[in-house]
């Protein structure tokens, strides 16, 4: 072995290039995994700063009311209180924010539009002091009539949620709205946030060719993301008049764009750093306490921490849109779909949040993963006084999937066909057209996914019976509550399949930024990866280290904390981060590799002809030829130099949907999953035990197979929750009835079935590594599969989720 020499000498360490370990396709341990399991992980709620104050939010007890007056005097006089802020204290001309439409007041101004809307803020030296002071703020309300459903939103004389809305730029209104209020061709009433029709072919004519037609009205309740780490963050005022915000979010730069104008600061004076995020599922796309903490910090000159408790958290973030869905499908006797028509009404609640995009998704996925040429679709989101709804895993596609899959079962029953066989006859494949006219130009193994879940052996019957004749109630509906020893229990099996888009759609400029530096540290090449990607538990940081290892041939990868000192990574949503920030890290690693190779050629090119002629790779800390010959070690090539690159990376462009026909190349990529549910139903008590939820999903490329299976387990379980228990109950007065984990139930391990997973890897040639965003698709088909199984066991129609025991026993 030649001795190591300086950077201009002969290359050293020319031993065999050891293959790169823990790269793409491996399942290295998550860096945050052990910490989270042992309780050592620092979440955003764990932050502490010397001299910090605690912020508290006073919220509206009413769903709709005029604010006559606010008296903060008594609260301000309480010892320990440093500031009390209302709308009148906002420092800048910008007083509203929003993801797409800036309609959300930072603090209520003259009117509250939903139960729990923030009205005033307090900063005090102790959280209990802040809470007591908030209780002393006197707000005089005059209650207003409540808009709580489609009839009350669009009826004659309906109160308008946003009479001055200015988000409808489509020129002169086609028909003027009530009272001369704004409207646009696609928004026929000012209490409609957004409406998207999709028309292709001639559904009316095609209906004439149908041998059978089935219709249905379906309902989806309001699901909550129920992330375990409540909203929290710490704002620290800076000497330059700016503020440093440490925050749990899904998209730092989107927050920044909304926060800075309200503070009256340029974006560079609001420096954001991601802190430990305890789950998100869409619920952290919108702002919660970000602006509030910054306002209090800037006002008091002290660091301010805000942590919501569980109760407040239910009011602190948007939820999944509840939906009512009317569907009609037709089919010929031989089991071919003729047409579909549907109308999907989503309840967006008091503020827009992500409603327009959810409408776009619900409408464009309304037909499901099926070939149907003649469609007539309408989806819209309402403004109401219900809690604001926005992003949640599955994003509009969840609601549609529940309805179209129920329709598929109805059609199969009507035609006396096997429900899987019927679906397979109509399953889309590569080249099929979406209702939007967009071709699915990547593998679409819908029939194969169904075949795989169906081919699995069924779980054993009557698993609660043990050899000794004892009953294991844990295997029965009701579990340890001991409600049955087998009496009234009927097994059911159901199937479902779904389609979900990946990445941001409809012409959005969706990009991610990465900065990568390669240098020698302690005698070893180390890659430093810096992105603003929010790790919310999805495992993105693990994947970034894997990509850097594979692309740069190193073992050591350091991740820079995610912050706004690097460009935007886009949102950790829409199943997009492995595709997008993973894609950006890959792309920038390639730039770094080019620089390294250029440097290598300069330093060592004369030592070996392959430097000039061969395709060169970085592998095992070495520069190697594609034939595997080692040319130099990275340590020698780099020497004292750090090689760095930074760039933005984009997926292929999409286009908006036409506002009248819905036609357009709207989505980047589609992902597919299928489920088979096996349930035991206590048909007398209406209780359900899901025994098994088998899933097959195409992920294009399993970047980290263990993480992929984890995502599928999690999505499947969240879908089960929507099927049988998870719902925020909102009464007709638009008040939230169950804002706690005592009455908002999420599945426990005793409710979680065996989830066998079958992962397909059919590469999508448009995507980095051929991967397909994996996080959302399993959430879609899980719910309808469970419901199909319960219908099979009970013979009941059950058109609503979550299903309740009283629906199953019909009392």
């Amino acid at each position: 072995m030649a001795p190591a020499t300086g950077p201009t000498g002969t290359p050293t360490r020319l031993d065999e290039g050891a293959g790169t370990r823990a790269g793409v396709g491996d399942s290295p341990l998550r860096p945050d995994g052990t910490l989270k399991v042992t309780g050592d992980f620092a979440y955003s709620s764990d932050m502490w700063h010397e001299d910090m104050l605690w912020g508290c939010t006073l919220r509206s007890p009413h769903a709709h009311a005029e604010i006559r007056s606010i008296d903060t005097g008594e609260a301000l006089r309480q010892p320990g209180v440093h500031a009390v802020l209302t709308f009148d204290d906002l420092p800048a001309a910008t007083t509203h924010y929003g993801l797409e439409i800036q309609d959300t007041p930072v603090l209520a101004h003259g009117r509250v539009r939903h139960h729990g809307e923030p009205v005033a803020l307090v900063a005090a030296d102790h959280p209990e002091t802040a809470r007591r002071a908030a209780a002393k703020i006197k707000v005089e309300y005059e209650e207003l009539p409540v808009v709580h459903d489609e009839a009350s939103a669009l009826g004659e004389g309906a109160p308008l949620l946003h009479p001055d809305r200015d988000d409808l730029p489509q020129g002169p209104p086609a028909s003027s709205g009530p009272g001369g209020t704004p409207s646009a061709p696609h928004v026929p009433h000012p209490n409609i946030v957004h409406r998207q029709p999709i028309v292709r072919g001639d559904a009316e004519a095609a209906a004439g060719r149908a041998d059978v037609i089935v219709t249905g009205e379906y309902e989806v309740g309001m699901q909550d993301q129920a992330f375990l780490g409540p909203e929290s963050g710490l704002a620290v005022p800076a000497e330059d008049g700016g503020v440093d915000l440490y925050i749990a979010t899904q998209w730092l730069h989107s927050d920044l764009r909304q926060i800075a104008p309200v503070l009256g600061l340029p974006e560079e004076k609001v420096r954001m750093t991601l802190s430990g995020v305890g789950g998100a599922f869409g619920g952290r796309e919108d702002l919660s306490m970000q602006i509030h903490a910054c306002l209090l910090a800037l006002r008091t000159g002290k660091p301010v921490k805000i942590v919501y408790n569980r109760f407040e958290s239910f009011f602190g973030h948007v939820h999944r849109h509840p939906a009512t869905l009317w569907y009609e499908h037709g089919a010929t006797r031989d089991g071919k779909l003729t047409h579909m028509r549907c109308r999907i009404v989503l309840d967006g609640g008091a503020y827009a949040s992500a409603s327009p995009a959810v409408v776009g998704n619900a409408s464009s996925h309304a037909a499901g993963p099926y070939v149907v040429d003649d469609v007539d679709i309408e989806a819209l989101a309402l403004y109401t006084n219900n809690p604001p709804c926005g992003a949640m895993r599955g994003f509009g596609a969840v609601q549609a999937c529940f309805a179209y899959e129920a329709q598929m079962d109805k059609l199969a029953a009507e035609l006396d066909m096997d429900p899987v066989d019927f679906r397979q006859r109509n399953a889309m494949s590569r080249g099929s057209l979406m209702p939007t006219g967009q071709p699915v130009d990547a593998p679409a193994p819908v029939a194969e996914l169904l075949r795989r879940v169906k081919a699995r052996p069924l779980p054993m019957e009557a698993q609660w019976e043990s050899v000794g004749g004892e009953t294991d109630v844990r295997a029965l509906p009701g579990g340890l509550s001991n409600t049955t020893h087998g009496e009234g229990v009927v097994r059911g099996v159901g199937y479902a399949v779904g389609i979900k888009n990946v990445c941001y759609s409809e012409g959005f400029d969706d990009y991610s930024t990465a900065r990568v530096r390669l240098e020698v540290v302690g005698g070893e090449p180390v890659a430093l990866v810096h992105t603003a990607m929010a790790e919310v538990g999805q495992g993105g940081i693990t994947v970034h280290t894997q990509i850097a290892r594979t692309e740069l041939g190193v073992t050591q990868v350091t991740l820079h904390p995610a912050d706004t000192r690097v460009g935007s990574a886009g949102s950790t949503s829409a199943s997009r981060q492995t595709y997008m920030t993973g894609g950006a890290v890959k792309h920038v690693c390639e730039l770094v590799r080019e620089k390294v190779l250029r440097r290598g050629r300069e330093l060592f090119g004369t030592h070996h002809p392959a430097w000039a002629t061969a395709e060169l790779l970085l592998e095992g800390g070495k520069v190697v030829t594609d034939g595997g010959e080692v040319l130099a070690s990275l340590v020698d090539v780099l020497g004292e130099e750090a090689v760095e690159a930074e760039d933005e990376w984009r997926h292929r462009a999409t286009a908006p949907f036409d506002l009248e026909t819905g036609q357009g190349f709207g989505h980047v990529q589609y992902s597919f999953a299928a489920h088979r549910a096996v349930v035991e139903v206590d048909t007398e008590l209406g209780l359900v035990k899901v025994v098994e939820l088998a899933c097959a999903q195409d992920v294009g490329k399993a970047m980290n197979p263990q993480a992929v299976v984890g995502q599928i387990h999690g999505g499947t379980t969240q879908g089960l929750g929507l099927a049988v228990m998870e719902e925020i109950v909102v009464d007709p007065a638009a008040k939230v009835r169950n804002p706690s984990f005592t009455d908002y139930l999420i599945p426990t391990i005793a409710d979680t079935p065996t989830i066998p997973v079958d992962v397909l890897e059919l590469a999508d040639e448009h995507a980095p590594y051929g991967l397909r965003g994996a996080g959302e698709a399993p959430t879609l088909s899980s719910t309808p599969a469970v419901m199909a199984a319960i219908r099979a066991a009970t013979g009941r129609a059950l058109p609503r989720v979550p299903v309740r025991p009283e629906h199953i026993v019909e009392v």
Partner: protein
Amino acid sequence: MEFLRPATWEEALAAKAEHPSAVPIAGGTDVMVEINFDHRRPTHLMDLGRIRELREWEVGDDTVRLGSSVPYSTIIDQLATELPGLALASHTVGSPQIRNRGSVGGNLGAASPAGDSHPALLAAGAEVEAESVRGTRFLPVEDFYTGVKRNALAEDELIKTVHIKKAEGPQQFSKVGTRNAMVIAVCAFSLALHPEGRTVRAGIGSAAPTPLRARAAEDFLDAALADGGFWDSGRALPPSLAREFAELCSGACNPIDDVRGSAAYRRRAVGVMARRTLGWTWESYRSTCSGRTTEGGSQCA
């Protein structure tokens, strides 16, 4: 909020006499939730954690003397033979962590109609030993619940012990919740057979403003079992008998519609649980009868 930490039972009684609004706290599984949700802000909290005898129990000839702070996990592990209904009910309380902290005394103090131990106490038969500086009272558990989250304790009284009849026959407990673990009862039911006195007792939870006994159903079943000679013969019960018992249990309910379930469903579910638990307990009783398979065989009880 003042935090009192009496070292002895006598100190606790004195403190309670001095501060009648003091809220006793043992496991805190109810009290702390109420405080966290800001539903109550008591002037005084009185920690009973230092009083050893409240965590002790004693099995006597006829009853179990259960200290008011004995956690549910202890009942499950140590008293399942003597108190099978209460042990089954204890199994359905919250999570393992909650069962390690929560106690029957706390359930009685909170007097929530949804408390899991109440139906089992009603079915087994129990007396609450309440004490104050003025003296001791023994309250039959059916007289203890006076309204939604209200009980018969005087403001200076504390629950010292619960005297629960030892099982002399099969007992069962069922609870409906919309999740298979860690769930508040939509409604609950407990049944105890008392072969020595040839009576049955049925307790219903979360289906009326207070936990209650299904007296008419008990009377019907007592009479039907006696008239048909079922205690002696150990014969299987005719389905019509179980159905009527179930209907009477349903009829004993006075439920409400709330976020956890509808009144109609609660009535229905109590009936189903009554029918099933009667089947299980009776089958269990029969299996202890030697003569059940022989014509005119020996007496069961």
